[in-house]
């Protein structure tokens, strides 16, 4: 049975249900146990399983280190990074340890861990609590980055991430926590490494993730009225990217617009652009357009943050430009 559930409720439910099913899954992080997390995502777990929910010191390196070691022994840790920006503090454990363990252990063991990281801007929290960190991690073979855009995806992808044998950074956009969608009550998982064709179309491919999906969907409706048919793709797994689905779509439409919340330089949009130029140059009818944040830290003052983050109007403008080319 399905019913409407919030994005945060869906993540909470995924944790409860998967922990019920698998006793090797546990959670740890700052304030995740007794308080149920800063954003309330892990509520009720400690009450149910006091020995499977751990409040830690402010020690992100120790948290991630513990995850890596415990995973090699067969446990399945789910750690919370209160803000994805804190990846910087435990970067080494992610890129030099988690991402390398499978390689180092010759495939005999790996860091089957999930790092839930609260990401993205829009809450007026300035440059240390608002960043999109996926490009910081996309150059690291061995890592997986997952980014749901609604409650249904959040539940299924979190379960898929916990069951995935590699280290997964699970991005939770804070602006999505209160958004609702239809979510099945039963436990289910969504396969990683597969992009979703959210809507089929023939003129332009828009690739967007997390909150940017709302821009893409709105733009598709608006452009439809002008007779422009948009295909929307949500990568869901941002790294490694589902090249086939994306490239196939762009080969069909001949036009690619990527809407990405983070700064433009070396964002994942750049990789998508390189992919299509390298693989299907002859199919392209227009240059790639990237709608992104400006290349500055995320500022605090609301007028400034709004100025810097991607603008919906720019999505429409980009689409018009690729059509007019």
């Amino acid at each position, binding site marked *: 049975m399905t019913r409407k559930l919030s994005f945060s409720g869906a993540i909470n439910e995924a944790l409860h249900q998967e922990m019920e099913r698998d006793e090797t899954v546990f959670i740890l992080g700052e304030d995740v146990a007794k308080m149920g997390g800063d954003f309330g995502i892990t509520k009720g777990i400690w009450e149910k399983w006091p020995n499977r929910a751990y409040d830690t010191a402010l020690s992100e390196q120790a948290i991630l280190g513990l995850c890596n070691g*415990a995973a090699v022994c067969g446990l399945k840790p789910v750690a919370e990074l209160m803000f994805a920006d804190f990846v910087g503090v435990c970067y080494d454990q992610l890129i030099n340890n988690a991402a390398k363990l499978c390689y180092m252990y010759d*495939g005999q063991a790996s860091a089957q861990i999930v790092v839930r990281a609260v990401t993205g801007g829009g809450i007026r929290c300035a440059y240390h609590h608002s960043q999109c960190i996926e490009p910081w991690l996309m150059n690291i073979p061995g890592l997986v980055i997952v980014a749901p855009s609604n409650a249904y995806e959040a539940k299924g992808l979190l379960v898929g991430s916990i069951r995935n044998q590699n280290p997964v950074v699970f991005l939770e956009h804070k602006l999505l926590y209160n958004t609702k969608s239809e979510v099945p009550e039963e436990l289910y998982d969504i396969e990683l490494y597969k992009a979703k064709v959210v809507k089929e179309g023939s003129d332009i491919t828009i690739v967007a993730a997390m909150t940017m999906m709302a821009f893409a969907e709105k733009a598709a409706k608006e452009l439809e009225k002008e007779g422009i048919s948009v295909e929307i793709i949500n990568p869901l797994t941002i790294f490694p990217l589902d090249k086939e689905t994306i490239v196939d779509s762009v080969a069909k439409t001949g036009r690619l617009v990527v809407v990405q919340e983070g700064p433009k330089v070396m964002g994942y949009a750049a990789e998508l652009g390189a992919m299509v130029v390298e693989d299907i140059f002859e199919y392209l009818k227009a240059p790639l357009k990237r709608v992104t944040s400006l290349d500055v830290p995320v500022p605090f003052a609301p007028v400034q943050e709004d100025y810097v983050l991607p603008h919906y109007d720019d999505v429409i403008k980009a689409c018009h430009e690729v059509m007019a080319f």
Partner: protein
Amino acid sequence: MALTKDRLWKVYRDMVLIRRFEEEVEKYAQNGTIPGFIHLSIGQEAAQAGVVEALKYTDYKFPDHRGHGAIVLSSPQERRKNCMSEIFAKESGINHGRGGSMHVNDLEARNMGFNGIQGSTVVTCLGTAFDSYYRKANKMEGWEADDKDLDVTAVFMGDGTLGEGTCHESLNMAATWNLPIIYCLINNHYAISTHYTESHPQQQLSTWGKGYEVPSFTVDGNDIEAVIEITEQAAERARKGEGPTLIEFMTYRWQGHFSGDPAAYRPDGELEAWQAKCPLLQTKKKLMEVHGYSEEELDALHAEVEEEIQGYVKFSLESPSPKAEDAMKFVYMDREVEGR
């Protein structure tokens, strides 16, 4: 506590094995057969052999970059030659030549390998220690009995590495949760060229542990009996769930930081003074003077180790290189990565 005659004999043999292993590795590093960086542990054999001796096969060991000794002794006899051929970058290497000197691991023997980033394993080891702690707390299969011992984790770290924040996060967390960890702090006085008193305010680094309320000790790291005694006590506490211990083993590396470093930063006479405190010589003396072993018996031991080591070397030299395209394996557990 003096070791029994037989046990002292056994660990003396272990130390001789390390010494000869390292000397051969150095020879083949110097002549270019072994690629990459090599960090030798000559002079520090007692701390490695003693810690491994005090542990069980099923205890977790995290050797550090200067860890060939702990590595080779952790593996059972039949896989020791593969530890050496790993350093030679060969297919027969215990990790098929994927890691080399710094990353030799043997999961079956619970040698968890080293991560080339100093201090990194000092937090990873929280996880192996946490594993049995968690299984016991949740009465998971095989862990139902209240009196079941925890698996101990021993992590090696140098005096320089203690400057990494990870070491402090780890001590704090392990002490708070009483995790079964032995922090084996190998104080060989130098981090590359920097003397430990130039980078830490303390004269003895074990004092770091006190702030975390971790029982902390400084012992002569060249006295194998002292090493085994203190490590066994720490292991016993850890197994019973009484928490971590920090042990500072005072010792000295005879070579430079890496094979080829002339170590010009050391004052004249320092090396010679430490060579006089050679852990092998000290133990040999005890074996002869206290336990009555003869020169001939010791010669026979040396000859036996020599034959063993020459076997490893021959095996390493004769083993083929791994296939180049195998570099693409095991990036992910469940998906392939495209090769050339």
